[in-house]
């Protein structure tokens, strides 16, 4: 019996879909059988990030309405044989599915897959309720910004109310240079405020934009810093103990010079 993990954030645009796509792909490369479920009905995107948009025939609404069987709607990834996508419908809205149907669906998927990753829509309405309904665990994605952390806190509260097992935090789009200047909250600041366990930190990285353009998750790019961070997070999900990657920026010429002449860089 597999595990259902929902990837959620409250706020939009912080990287839920990117995180789902990359963690799913990384778990598949580790040899697990994984299915990604897009619950953002009406605003689907996981298919595009995975580069599978032109293979969609049936979607999650067709499955819960009994138009097709689960197997017919699952799209096999073009790179990894053990990775599948269950796409959202684009021409319907969140109310096309209810929490009870979602629970049943997750129960079915769990039988066949090691990991069921659910990409949650932004917001706290029906779409969110559906996404968490069948989940065993939750990953909260937050960026080091006031609005994102505030929304993450609200989501943690809602998950507690839904009696979800302690959610884990992924800090996304961290910019070590800004942290160093004191212009961005650092890892400790965010953990202190949110008071939940840290699952990983993903640095801001141009390769995410490039990989999304191409429809190939960044974890497949060996040179991508963000990809490396996601690979580490995937290993932590499987229970492995992986240290946080080193995000300190290499010192530039001026900082080296200052050190040489004995000026301390505060």
């Amino acid at each position, binding site marked *: 019996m597999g595990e259902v993990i929902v990837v959620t954030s409250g706020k939009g645009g912080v990287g839920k879909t990117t995180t789902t796509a990359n963690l799913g792909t990384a778990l598949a490369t580790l040899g697990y059988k994984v299915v990604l479920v897009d619950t953002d009905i*009406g*605003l*689907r995107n996981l298919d595009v990030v995975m*580069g599978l*948009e*032109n*293979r*969609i*025939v049936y979607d999650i609404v067709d499955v819960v309405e009994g138009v097709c069987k689960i197997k017919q709607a699952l799209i096999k990834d*073009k790179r990894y044989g053990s990775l599948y996508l269950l796409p959202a419908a*684009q*021409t*319907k809205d969140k109310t096309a599915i209810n929490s009870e149907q979602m629970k049943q669906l997750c129960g079915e998927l769990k039988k066949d897959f090691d990991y069921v990753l659910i990409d949650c829509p932004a917001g706290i309405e029906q779409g969110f309720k559906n996404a968490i309904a069948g989940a065993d665990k939750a990953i909260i994605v937050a960026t080091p910004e006031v609005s994102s952390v505030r929304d993450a806190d609200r989501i943690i509260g809602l998950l507690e109310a839904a009696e979800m097992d302690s959610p884990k935090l992924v800090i996304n789009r961290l910019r070590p240079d800004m942290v160093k200047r004191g212009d961005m909250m650092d890892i400790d600041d965010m953990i202190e405020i949110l008071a939940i366990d840290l699952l990983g930190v993903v640095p801001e990285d141009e390769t995410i934009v490039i990989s999304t353009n191409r429809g190939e998750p960044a974890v497949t790019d060996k040179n991508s810093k963000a990809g490396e961070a996601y690979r580490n997070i995937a290993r932590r999900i499987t229970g492995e103990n992986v240290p946080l990657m080193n995000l300190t920026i290499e010192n530039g010429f001026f900082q080296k010079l200052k050190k040489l002449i004995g000026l301390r860089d505060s």
Partner: protein
Amino acid sequence: MRNDGVTIKGTKEGLLIILDGELDFPVILRKLEEKITRVENFFAGAQAILDLSGRLVQPEQLEQLEHLISSQHGIEIIRIINQGCLDEKGEREAMEGAIVEDGLRNGNGNRNRRVTLNENEEQLSTLIIKRTLRSGQRVNYDGNVVILGDVNPGAEVIASGDIVVMGAFRGVAHAGAKGNEKAIITAFSLQPTQLRIANIITRPPDEENSEPNQPEVAKIKDGMVIIESSLNFSN
């Protein structure tokens, strides 16, 4: 004419209920209910033609409309007109006339099916949409569909006949949705997410990224969907 989104007129055939494109669907639904309720006894048992030409209506919304009009107020919908967005009033009047005539000739109360399909392609009706279809919008029409605009990724066009796009096509198209293998899909710039003709589903190959620089047409040949320049197209 006061434009509150809902117009009810009497015609030879029965009531003509016209819904406009401007207002949100729930508002339209409420206005319609108000209008019908006001003169309930007068309308009950009547036959009506529902004209949705002015707006795009989702299948679920159509169900809600049918429920309101037929189940709740006992008005029988004998036909649904969906002719795309015709903004000039004169044009719409002309279209209404044509349809009423057509309907009388067929003479049956088969709603939503104005013309029989497949056996005689000449008789397929055509829906003209004068706008760009965006992600999440979906057109499902029993007949041919002509779009004077683009079809963006995430939009779907399903037709039992042909699909003609006078613009760029980037969404999902399903021509010959009822099994007509002679149906075609053509566009000024054909860059589909997915093409379906009859029961065949195809997608562009992964490696190909080039934009076509001429109008193209997709059709079934020897059991496969092929795309060729529409300049040397012959059916």
